[in-house]
């Protein structure tokens, strides 16, 4: 299963980015193969409006099943995530990606 984290860097030690739509990077962790990938989302800075749904679209392209982030995504982004069946866990804004993964595994994050 692929779990995506909104992050300020590219690996499991990176700090989480609490934002969804305008997150700097995604870190994509594949639980089956234990592999870590990342995606540079910084070109989103150029978008005046609609950053949320655009980022959500990217996530769907990666085949993510779970999203772990800080604040919950706004309305349009939430619609895309729901449509594509991605489960959303929030409240990990102040952690590192690794800590966020552990918090998710141990059921310490809220789902929306």
């Amino acid at each position, binding site marked *: 299963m692929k779990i995506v984290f909104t992050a300020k860097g590219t690996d499991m030690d990176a700090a989480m980015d609490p934002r969804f739509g305008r997150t700097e990077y995604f870190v994509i962790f594949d639980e089956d193969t234990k592999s870590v990938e990342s995606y540079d989302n910084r070109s989103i800075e150029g*978008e005046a*409006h*609609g*950053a949320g*749904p*655009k980022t959500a*679209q990217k996530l*769907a392209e990666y085949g993510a099943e779970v999203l772990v982030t800080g604040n919950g995504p706004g*309305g*349009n982004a939430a*619609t*895309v995530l729901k*449509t*594509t069946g991605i489960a959303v866990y929030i409240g990990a804004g102040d952690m590192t990606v690794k800590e966020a993964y552990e918090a998710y595994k141990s059921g310490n994050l809220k789902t929306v």
Partner: protein
Amino acid sequence: MKIAIASGKGGTGKTTLSTNLASYIAESRECALSDLDVEEPNSGLFIKAELIHEEDKFKKIPEWEKSRCELCGNCQTVCNFNAVLKLGKMIMVFPELCHGCYACSELCPTGSLPMKQKKMGELKAYKSGNLNFIESRLIIGEEQAVPLIKQTIDYVDEHFSDEVIKIFDSPPGTSCPVIEATRDADFVILVTEPTPFGLHDLKLAVETVKQMGKPFAVVINRHGIGNDCVELYCKEDNIDIIASIPNDRLIAETYSRGDLLYPTIPSVKDAVRSISTYIDNFDLLDNGSLKSKKTGQIK
């Protein structure tokens, strides 16, 4: 005559002035007040009148028809507003982000995105004696205020003759919605507070109306609370101050209850009377400028 009531900053008393002025004018002649702050229309809280008409207002947005779509993604490429996205085997449209430019619809090779009507808000018209009140409200989540403002002004133009005094309570700020709301006005009243914040935002509003080439004047609300910075600025730039409403706790309390001010507070009655007299003093010329009946001066 169309009068827009505007201000650079929110919370300066636009709605207070619009509702009191319109109600006062309606005591002697027909008046139409429109609340164009369609995102947060608050005038209705102060007007007691009978609902005589309501209608839904629509904008055109694309709607995906799956059957012929070849999922080429051209719609997503041509949309500059992220309002159309291709998600796997489906096309998703975000109505709040759509500006209604038709590009995705008309450039779609299979005609799979026809433009359909979508409700963006509601218009309600009320009447009480000589006072007509028109209010439009954007539905929550809708981000484009301009089309609804435009349709509301069209409604007022269609339903009221030139003799009726029309007052437009405009949205705050200096961006597109304000420009749309004041574009048609013959005269703009800028409401401000006599404080440094008020002055700073007033200057921006003055710059905006000057750029639009509109005649305008200033009304000071909560007079006495700050300093004389606004008065000095207006004097220096030759801007008329047509009325002042004093700062008064009683006014704040009356407002908080949703009541009109001028029937019980003499200073407010004086203020709306001066504004009404000031407006009456002008004839509207065919070229859109205003001519003073007394001095013959053209604004």
